[in-house]
């Protein structure tokens, strides 16, 4: 894909303050110093960050992600960037959102950002979800971080005219996030949790079968969890429903250059032939039936 451009990237501009939004419209992916609008805790483990996006980042699609340069501290110096899914984008408000779990050096650094600070973000990256235009009922099954990735898909599907059922699973009810956001977008939300004792795979399976019996599901998505992947793979096969999964892998470049982020995939459904694909560039969203459980 050749990008038509006479634009000469001026990096002094790029490197300068985040208040300036350099004109990089010619490039679909930008390394953009974005201004933080807010970065608040949603529960004990997760933060919700809203930034002012440039034109390129405002074109982000559900399932795509950004590669974030996490600020260092005296002790932590995260050398590489960290991938984060698009949690929301609002082109008219000019905002891009992330929902992230604070767990290691990089995300601890992200958590230190305050309103007005600068976040160097590279993106949007990867291939997002591709829901067939004819889709009538999307089932999203998400746990933990997977929620951040799936949430923006709901509005997109609803905009297509589809019904969306979001099954949210978490360790405890307090860790269920995005319920309001999903309901607000018009999705039906089913929340389950380990402490309530209704999040085991057999129970989810029964739930999905009931749902499908009521309003047939014709697109299934999930993210991250191995046991959810297994469940959806077997159901999608049995019920003849297509679907996609968003995968994760440790990344170097996030733009398809380093081949660090590979995972094995089947060439096609049921194929015995495997090959590595780059999560960052060939994905992170892949056909459900080609993913390998691990």
């Amino acid at each position, binding site marked *: *894909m*050749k*990008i038509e*451009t006479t*634009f*000469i*990237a*001026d*990096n*002094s501009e*790029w*490197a300068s303050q985040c208040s300036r939004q350099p004109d990089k419209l010619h*490039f*679909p*992916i*930008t*390394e953009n110093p974005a201004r933080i609008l807010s970065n608040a805790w949603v529960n004990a483990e997760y933060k919700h960050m809203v930034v002012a996006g440039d034109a390129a980042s405002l074109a982000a699609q559900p399932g795509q992600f950004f590669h974030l*340069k996490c600020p260092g501290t005296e002790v932590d*110096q*995260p*050398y*590489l*960037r960290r991938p984060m899914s698009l949690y929301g984008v609002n082109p008219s408000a000019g905002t891009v959102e992330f929902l992230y779990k604070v767990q290691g050096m990089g995300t601890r650094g992200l958590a230190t950002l305050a309103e007005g600070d600068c976040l*160097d973000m*590279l993106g949007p990256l990867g291939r997002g979800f591709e829901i067939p235009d004819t889709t009538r009922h999307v089932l999203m099954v998400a746990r933990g971080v997977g929620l951040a990735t799936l949430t923006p898909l709901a509005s997109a599907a609803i905009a297509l005219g589809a019904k969306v059922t979001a099954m949210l699973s978490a360790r405890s009810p307090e860790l269920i996030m995005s319920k309001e956001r999903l309901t607000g977008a018009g999705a039906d939300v089913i929340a389950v949790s380990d402490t309530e004792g209704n999040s085991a795979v057999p129970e989810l399976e029964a739930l999905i079968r009931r749902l499908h019996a009521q309003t047939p599901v014709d697109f299934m998505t999930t993210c991250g969890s191995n046991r959810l992947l297994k469940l959806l793979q077997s159901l999608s096969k049995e019920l003849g429903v297509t679907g996609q999964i968003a995968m994760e*892998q*440790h*990344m*170097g*470049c*996030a*733009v*398809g*250059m*380093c*081949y*660090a*982020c*590979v*995972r094995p995939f089947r060439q096609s459904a049921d194929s015995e032939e495997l*090959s*590595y694909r780059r999560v960052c*560039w060939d994905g992170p969203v892949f056909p459900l039936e080609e993913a390998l459980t691990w």
Partner: protein
Amino acid sequence: MVNTTVKIGSLELANPVMPASGTFAEGMAQIIDINRLGAIVTKTITSDKRQGNPPPRIAEFRNSTLFSIGIPSKGADYYIEETVTFYRQYTPPLVASISADSIDQFGELAAKISVPGVQAIEANISCPNLKKNGQAFGMDAEATYQVVRAMKAATQVPIWPKMTPNAANIVEIALAAQEAGADAIVVSNALLAMAIDVDTFLPKVANVMGGITGPAMKPILLRMAHQCAQAVDIPVIGCGGIESAEDAIEYLLAGASAVQVGTANFVSPNTMLQVINDIIAFCERRDISHVSELVGAMRHHEPIRFEGVNSF
């Protein structure tokens, strides 16, 4: 106006900055104007298709990274049809990087990919992951000589062997490459390294060992580039740990004619353009009219002046 052109043998580059093999791909064209680069260097390919090493393939340290990728390759036909075609849309010369299992295959692959659009071929004789314990052609002067000879016999396209820093006698190997007709040498690839997770007792990359890259490695690889530049007459292309114009200038001062930027492309895809801009600014500030004046311009400390007193 600073003149930024450099000559690498018969090839003139608009400026001395290019990517290091394996750290650049088509995706970069969606982020920066790759027409501003001195050259384009692609990921090493083999003649056949290969999958590379199992994941996890990467670990991160404070100032460097450990990669154990192997040489995943879509093969020579894909390269000629897809990769070369893609880069022919752009102006900088395209440098292909190849690897092979035998001396003959190095020659054959060089011949095969000498298609219009390929303006130099890097010989990756140094990939630390491909051969057991990193023992590759580039560990040995004789094997290096043979590989370069086979490639030179097979094609008119300039040949740039890329040295491995895991070799002790890098100067000897550089001389062997020159002797065999190399048009330039790239110094260098990555040092073999490893890391273990003390919680799980597992190695941080599945392959146990990988190549360590990034700024922390610069002083070692700079030393090697300097040693080679002092020994050979052909151009040396410095590579290792470059993330700023100062780093690139350090390599030029040490004797390199051009530089390759690797891991820094991952940290910031704008790095190479920034390096070019800042080299120009540096030259302007210091009234240097041609970037090539920096090449080999390192000075030396004067011996301590003992002011009439005899030294010991």
